[in-house]
């Protein structure tokens, strides 16, 4: 699953990030914000139009806003899907 497909309130762990897909500037920014393999993420909110952008909890503490187009580059290993819980 990719980050843009993660249902709201579901948790997952980042398994891989396609840095090349992002381009240099966006990749640097994403890395600076703390995106990294092995980090836990949770989808919190969607923007009002087209469910874009999304607000993602990174680790335990930080919330980051990211567009779907970028979230697509982040692959996940799903831990817990909210609808099932």
């Amino acid at each position, binding site marked *: 699953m990719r980050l843009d497909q993660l249902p709201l309130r579901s948790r997952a762990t980042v398994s891989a990030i396609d*840095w090349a897909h992002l381009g240099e*500037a*966006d*990749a*640097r*920014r*994403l*890395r*600076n*914000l*703390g995106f*990294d393999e092995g980090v836990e993420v949770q989808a*919190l*909110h*969607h*923007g*009002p*139009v*087209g*469910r*874009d*952008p999304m*607000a993602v909890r*990174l*680790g*335990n*503490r*930080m*919330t*980051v*806003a*990211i*567009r779907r*187009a*970028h979230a697509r580059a982040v692959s996940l290993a799903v831990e817990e899907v909210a609808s099932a819980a």
Partner: protein
Amino acid sequence: MSGLPLVAVVGNPNAGKSALFNMLTGARQRVGNYPGVTVERKAGRFALADGRPVELVDLPGAYSLDPSSPDEAVTRDVVQGTQTGERRPDALLIVLDATNLDNHLRFALQLIDLGLPTAVALNMVDLAERDGLTVDRAKLEAELGVPVVETVAVRRRGLDPVREALTDLLDGARPRPAKREATATGDDLVQLQRRARAIARAAVAEEGSTARRLSHVLDRVLLHPLAGPLILIAVMFTMFQGVFAWSEAPVGWLEGLVGFAQDAVRGAVGEGFLRSLLVDGVLAGVGSVVVFLPQILILFLFILLLEGSGYMVRAAFIMDKLMARAGLSGRAFIPLLSSFACAVPGIMATRTIEEPRDRLTTILVAPLMTCSARLPVYAVVIGAFIPAREVGPGVGLQGLVLFGLYVAGVVGAFLAAVALRGTLLRGGSQGFMMEMPKYQLPHWRDVALGLWQRAAIFLKRAGTIILVSTVVLWALLSFPQPKPGESALDASIAGKAAKGIEVLVRPIGFNREIALALIPAMAAREVAVAALATAYSIQDSADGAEPSEESMIDNLRGRWSLPTALAFLMWFVFAPQCISTVAVARRETNGWKWPAFMLGYLFGLAYLMAGLTYWGATALGL
């Protein structure tokens, strides 16, 4: 400055860095720019434990030493000692958000590895407690190898421990941290990140707590797909109603004060050149601008509160998709919203937008956001021509028209951005990627300081540019003296120049006084009001009557038709650039090409829109 030791305050955005800086330096700060770049330099003084002064500089917030914006580049260059116009700091004070160590420690580690004497302010420990987090200060100190002190900058807690730590650092009482060469490549960053997380895990104990969900609960409401945008609209609407309604009383006081001063001068100075200069030139001109200080302060109060509370980023989140439709990013929302106060800081705030075309588009449309300097113009004309009645519970017609003018600017900006992104500035789009800070109650002291800095800038403008241009205009309007039977305005230099402009603007319903006011409005928009006041005041004197005691509003009501007034409002929505905006656009785009383009397209748009308004209103028989 002098050879005082320099301490740089540095940290992540949203770590409470500026609040800490305010706590340490107090109200006396000097705000300037780094040479050659448009990054703000904020400096102040701080006394060590033994009273020795040090200079403190507040560096732009950054996530790492691998910069993604010009602001972050300045931070890197200063701490590495390669920034022109700044000596290398003698010590660093790192501000860390105690609630977000997992993500913010990485930058702190990079900074510590520079090997400068360093102390860490573990800020917002109160919020960490609220979130059920206990940070083991001693353990963090041991892991980082530099002194760590706890602070709550917005509540002014931790001032003395910071003072002691900085005193020790500058006395060399503690060994410097070891210097490590960093390459700042991706792999290095990942290693650093892992080290940071390991330290955070070791130093932070977490207990379950429901209180920590506060930001979460607020976000569920404020970012709700339906409620969120409605709340945003309500907030914006309240802001603009507030600007009008709350300023009424203080505006009245200031007007009274100016009138009192004019009477005093009339009493003290005999009829003649000096009296006319003081009463009609200086006091009428500057006075009619200064009375708008309350409105400008109310607007800035809202902007500072929205920024300080963390809501501003939520607004950007809600707006991002719409901004994307215009080819912009949610990041452009903050510079554009700031442009409601003034396009100059707004355009400067576009530095956080990395993508050059994104940024250029934002700069080009920023002047369409109705800046506070246009408020005086709107206020006078709306006051004169729009009846002050309620059209619904708590909704005044005047406020509604004002809101409409703001909306016209926003719609114009949206369309201009779409057009620019589809033609001249096609291609390349940057995403919207930013941290969403916790909600917090801004401290009144930080808000007051921000307001004071804005008020000072405004009054300085009123005291310099506006004073000079109104006096020059007064002179242009007063000389040469009229021959018998000729009106003062017709005889004057400005009257003759305005005749030329009048030919151009007559088709869109503008008279000669307006043509005249458009000249100094180039210096600063709000001068248009002062210029009209001066022009009408002088006309009154020449008509044989005593200089008019009646307010500007009554004056306009008798002289302009409604279509003219509406066209004038529309002109101000789109057109006149103030010189400062053009100057800052030149600086930010490194040349005259884009500012010239901006002038051209905005004047064209203004002429067209004012014309359509005038012709339309006339056809409707208004």
